[in-house]
């Protein structure tokens, strides 16, 4: 496995891009919400309060936060089963997301989707999709709709490095480029395709960036742990899409701190590989950067406390909420709210 240095990344994120103060703090708040939320979610797994599986973005928060901050309110998000961060990034409250993970009636999806299918249409978070690659094609459809109606909206689609080897990825890239769709594809390259190094199963070293040329697109490679670099890349890609120039394929190089899913302790990774990435932590280093850049400790502490407060309240509310009404099993197959298939 290449080290960050071998991948051309600095030992610590550069944080070289300048942004407005409110954006700077907003990015921190957004990342911290993801980080704290997912750590709590993991604790709740260990207590067996969260059933089923779950895929955490710990270590990858800068990507979701940067796009969440850069996107217009009516731009659409399409995420994968690793979608907690992308849901929170659109401003969805922690409480319904936590309740969904716990399978409670107050869940974001009333308990019908769970961790892998988080969706909040009112926030234009158009779903978390758990079949690798499929949602790239769906994001195209939303972008096509924006193009047809002239709304200026952009669809942003996040996926992992493993997705670059499935057919739907290539179908979607070709169609998006051919139709010049206002869509941004964001590959979160965390170097591991589930339990396998992406480099060992991919014909090119940069799984997304090296494929861009095949669709007439420029390669865009970003330090995915540098939230300011990501924010800059997001703004450029969104502006390009809105201008009518077509899609962008962004490869954000990052690393997941934990395993692929709840079931995976990630023992296949050597400590020597993991350590430099933990040292590149996108949240802690960014907080230190803000402090060094003149944001007061009290202002940062205020964000910390605010996030902790939201998280504790969300956790307690989810624990206290009842299980969903069993009648929901046969609700909402159809738009009339029901599940009937005969008269």
């Amino acid at each position, binding site marked *: 496995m290449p080290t960050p240095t071998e991948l051309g990344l600095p030992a610590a994120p550069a944080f070289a891009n300048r942004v407005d103060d409110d954006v700077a703090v907003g990015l921190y708040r957004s990342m911290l919400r993801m980080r704290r939320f997912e750590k709590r979610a993991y604790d709740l797994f260990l207590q067996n309060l969260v059933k089923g599986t779950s895929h955490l973005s710990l270590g990858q928060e800068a990507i979701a936060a940067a796009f969440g901050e850069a996107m217009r309110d009516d731009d659409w998000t399409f995420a994968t089963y690793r979608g907690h961060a992308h849901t929170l990034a659109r401003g969805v409250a922690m409480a319904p997301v936590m309740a969904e993970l716990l399978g409670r009636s107050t869940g974001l999806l009333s308990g019908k989707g769970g961790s892998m299918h988080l969706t909040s249409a009112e926030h234009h978070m158009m779903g978390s999709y758990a079949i690798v690659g499929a949602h790239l094609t769906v994001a195209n459809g939303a972008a096509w709709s924006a193009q047809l109606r002239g709304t200026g909206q952009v669809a942003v689609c996040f996926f992992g490095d493993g997705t670059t080897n499935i057919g739907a990825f290539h179908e*979607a890239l070709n169609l998006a480029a051919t139709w010049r769709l206002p869509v941004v594809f964001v590959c979160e390259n965390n170097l591991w395709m589930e339990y396998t190094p992406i480099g060992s199963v991919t014909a090119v070293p940069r799984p997304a960036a090296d494929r861009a040329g095949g669709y007439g697109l420029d390669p865009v490679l970003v330090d995915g742990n540098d939230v300011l670099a990501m924010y800059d890349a997001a703004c450029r890609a969104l502006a390009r899409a809105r201008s009518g120039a077509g899609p962008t394929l962004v490869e954000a190089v990052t690393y997941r701190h934990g395993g692929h899913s709840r079931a995976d302790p990630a023992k296949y990774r050597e400590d020597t590989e993991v350590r430099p990435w933990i040292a590149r932590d996108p949240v802690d280093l960014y907080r230190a950067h803000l402090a060094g850049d003149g944001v007061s400790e009290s202002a940062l502490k205020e964000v910390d406390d605010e996030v902790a407060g939201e998280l504790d309240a969300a956790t307690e509310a989810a624990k206290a909420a009842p299980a969903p009404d069993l009648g929901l099993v046969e609700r909402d197959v159809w738009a009339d709210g029901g599940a009937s298939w005969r008269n």
Partner: protein
Amino acid sequence: MAQLTYRDAVARGIAQELERDERVVFLGEDVGSAGGVFKSTTGLFDRFGPRRVRDTPISEQAILGAAMGAAMTGMRPIAEIMFSDFLAVCWDIVANEIAKTRYMSGGQLTLPLVIRTANGGGLRFGAQHSQAVENWAMAVPGLKVVAPSTPRDVVGLLAAAVRDPDPVVFFEAKGLYPVKGEVPDGEIVDTLGTAEIRRQGGDCTIVALAAMVPRAIEAAGTLAGLGIEATVIDVRSLVPLDTRTILASTAATGRLFTVEENPRLCGWGAEVASIAAEEVWSELTGPIVRITTPHVPLPSADALEDHARPSAALIAETVRKSLGGARA
């Protein structure tokens, strides 16, 4: 009233909806300037332009994904999958994405879209371009499934499918494309989930779908010559399923036959038979009989393909023997 082929009715049906609603768009392989490989969409590109009638690459997943994303953001797409066999190429988008997203999202997302596809045999295309796969779609919760047998129903049921708020898979019987029928002038809008009684008779009920409907009607004519009067029901819509019409007729005649082009196992007739057995058992005077394509991939040679698909002669003979047996 015009005489239209089933093929021309497809173009008329799509045009009716494109004309009516700006949100309706149509996409697929060769559907635009080429007018479709079956010439069933001729003229739409010239009339509505490339913005609304869109040619795509050979990318079935991208086609249906585009339809899905457009549908969930306010459009009413009609997507063509050239041959229903190709649904296997994009079955993830159909069965995992389109069918489940409304339910998984707790009802937040709505997917008003239509997947049109040319289904079934009769053109000697062999096993990868001739399957009848309506039962695949019927097996997936979250999909409505429609299969018209007449040019009039092509227009009316397509309109109903486009206007329906849920995803509809619309199976066109490719063997019927050249068949003519009367189509009334003006707007035609049908209702999903309604079967049509094509012929009334007191001795038995024959339930058929799409390309099997004209064969069932022909068989009923043969049977009438033998003194057996059959009711023929055109199912038209598998989901929702008009069990009321089927069960009422079955209860009245006491005998139920299904005629299915799909291969034997888990064909739609099995579901109909099970419902009838549960709900009108006491009215039945003999066994429920399914007439299907055998459980084989469809062969290519005309003699073999004709032998494999249920013919009017096979239907008539099966019914005659079965009723004779019941009366003996």
